[in-house]
């Protein structure tokens, strides 16, 4: 074992929290979370999670009053409509823009503005709500990225600690450690390089980063929620959607992200997972945490092949992100809130009986599962099967290796049984990938040595991941 191996759970496998399909439904998680002003997540009711961002606008001292006015307009519009539509509760995510993490005071100021408005709507109209703050991971603003020191890291750490005092109820991040290598792997459909990025580097960074975040949350009494492999698997999803890489590779990238994203929960995060972490169902199955998901009503942010199936076992339902542009009816964030509210109503009505929830889940699943391998790997029964295989392994690297191998095997079997459609131009790729996957060494040190030599010129700093310089 490498001295720098990051797993928190020691060297043994995990027993998944959910093992039966009957218990794998939306709205219910084994470990519900209470947060904010009367919000409970994962205890029977799916809650809308609304995210918004600025329209094209430079963020600087001169534009700051406009920036504040924009956020104020957005949160007012969203809270007002949430009251009118009588949502059971509202989760708002504020993802900072880079200048707001580099200058954490700015991020804190907008956090406070949002929290105050939400508190006012709670007081006056009884709107239950919680605010999730998601600072950017700005560490790749220098290239190669510097992960554990420097002004970018310092800004992030400062904002982690300011989150609670500013009014945030939950802390999250879309962390990027290992992405610089994974990107190279994706573009070249080079599975080995991808595994090195997401199975070796990323988990080491996750352990470092999330240990810090969990400590900050405990000190300030807020919820350490979750992370997302957005920079990895969603990059793959978007490239596949643009037909730049095979969909099969994007499906593999998704499941390969599971061990990396698990690390946050192993070191103390408790959920809900981030909306754009489509690996969420695996987190829910393995760790029992509630999850946030996004799909058809996040089309404003991503086109996707998993518009309905993404909803099958969600606990929060999100629009991912939308800019404050004017649509015919209202500003786009208000429009998103309305769509999410109706989506959640439908799920919650159906879930008045347990059979209703499984029926709705199965329809959401059947809608997409057979049309795309990325949808297939979100099929609840497939998730449970692959999650069990992944969790059985003791370390993030071995879990990633297993994820890649098992996913390719499962997709190949499903394709043979016509359970999932693989585009004609992709079939040749499955065999190529399987050969590479089967050849991944069992010994992590051996793999690291091999990859460090292969990637000697690659734009990353091994020491920033706790490897020798």
């Amino acid at each position, binding site marked *: 074992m490498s001295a720098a191996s990051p797993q928190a759970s020691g060297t043994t496998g995990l027993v998944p929290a959910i093992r039966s399909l009957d218990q794998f439904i939306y709205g219910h998680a084994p470990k519900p979370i209470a947060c904010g002003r009367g919000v409970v997540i994962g205890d029977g009711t799916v809650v809308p999670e609304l995210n918004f961002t600025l329209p*094209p*606008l430079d963020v600087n001292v001169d534009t700051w009053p406009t920036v504040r006015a924009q956020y104020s307009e957005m949160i007012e519009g969203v809270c007002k409509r949430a009251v009118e539509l009588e949502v059971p509760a509202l989760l708002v995510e504020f993802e900072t823009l880079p200048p707001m993490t580099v200058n954490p005071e700015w991020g804190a100021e907008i956090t406070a503005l949002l929290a105050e408005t939400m508190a006012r709507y709670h007081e006056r109209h009884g709107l239950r709500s919680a605010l999730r703050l998601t600072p950017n991971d700005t560490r790749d603003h220098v290239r190669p990225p510097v992960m554990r020191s420097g002004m970018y890291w310092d800004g992030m750490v400062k904002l982690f600690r300011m989150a609670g005092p500013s009014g945030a109820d939950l802390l999250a991040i879309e962390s990027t450690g290992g992405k610089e290598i994974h990107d190279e792997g994706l573009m070249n*459909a080079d599975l080995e390089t991808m595994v090195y990025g997401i199975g070796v580097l990323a988990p080491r960074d996750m352990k470092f980063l999330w240990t810090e975040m969990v400590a900050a949350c405990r000190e300030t009494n807020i919820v350490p929620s979750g992370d997302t492999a957005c920079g990895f698997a969603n990059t793959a999803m978007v490239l596949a959607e643009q037909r730049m890489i095979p969909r099969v590779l994007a499906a593999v990238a998704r499941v390969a992200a599971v061990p990396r994203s698990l690390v946050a929960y192993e070191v103390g995060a408790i959920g809900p997972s981030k909306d754009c972490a489509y690996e969420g169902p695996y987190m829910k199955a393995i760790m029992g945490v509630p999850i946030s998901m996004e799909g058809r009503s996040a089309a404003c942010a991503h086109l996707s092949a998993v518009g309905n199936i993404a909803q099958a076992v969600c606990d929060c339902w999100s629009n991912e992100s939308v800019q404050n542009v004017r649509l015919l009816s209202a500003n786009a964030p208000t429009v998103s809130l309305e769509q999410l509210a109706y989506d959640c109503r439908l799920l919650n009505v159906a879930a008045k009986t347990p059979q209703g929830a499984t029926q709705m889940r199965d329809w959401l699943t059947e809608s997409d599962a057979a049309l795309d391998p990325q949808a297939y790997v979100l099929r609840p029964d497939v998730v449970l099967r692959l999650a069990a295989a992944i969790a059985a392994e003791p370390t993030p690297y071995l879990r990633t290796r297993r994820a890649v191998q098992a996913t390719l095997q499962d997709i190949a079997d499903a394709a043979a049984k016509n359970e999932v459609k693989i585009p004609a131009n992709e079939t040749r790729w499955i065999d190529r990938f399987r050969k590479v996957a089967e050849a991944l060494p069992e010994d992590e040190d051996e793999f690291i040595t091999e990859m460090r030599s292969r990637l000697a010129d690659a734009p990353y700093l091994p020491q920033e991941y706790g490897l020798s310089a």
Partner: protein
Amino acid sequence: MSDLQALYTAVLEGNAPAAKAAVQQALDEGVNPEELLQKYMIPAMDEVGRLFEANEYFVPELLISARAMKGALELIRPKLVETGAKPVGKVVIGTVRGDLHDIGKNLVAAMLEGGGFEVIDLGVDVSPEKFVETAKEKGAEIIAMSALLTTTMPGMKTTVEAVNGAGLKGKVKTMIGGAPVTQRYADEIGADGFSDNASGAVRVARELVAK
């Protein structure tokens, strides 16, 4: 006599060693390098582009072909210079200020290199001044800009203005691309070229150089 069809196939299939070997043999036998380029290598890359646009090839296949092409070009370029053939062109490329996305930009850079262009890659978060200075310094014909965020797109406009402000209008052409960028936006800011995909970008760059 060397089998030049093998050169075409090597580039098409992204077999770099075979491409190099075929070029070397042909050069040794005195085949005109211009002919190698125009009749075999560029048509092979055009076919690669066609296969990509027809959804038969994916980006990884584009890239290995571009790399095979690049390797072969390195052997040819000195000969081309000797014969006085005009080089294809120089491109300064980067992702605009405030934007840290590099996948699309890297892909276009690789394809341009595969297309025979000399590419100076400034990386991400590139200021308008940096684009213009480098283009001047290196004598580039084209500045190629990428942006993935609607918030950073204005950097493209500023750069086009900086090019014009430096008196380089018409001498240094600008081209833009990236998820939120459209032909309409290009027209609006006065950029000379636009492409919504990497193999199209090579075509646009060729047209701009030919103008």
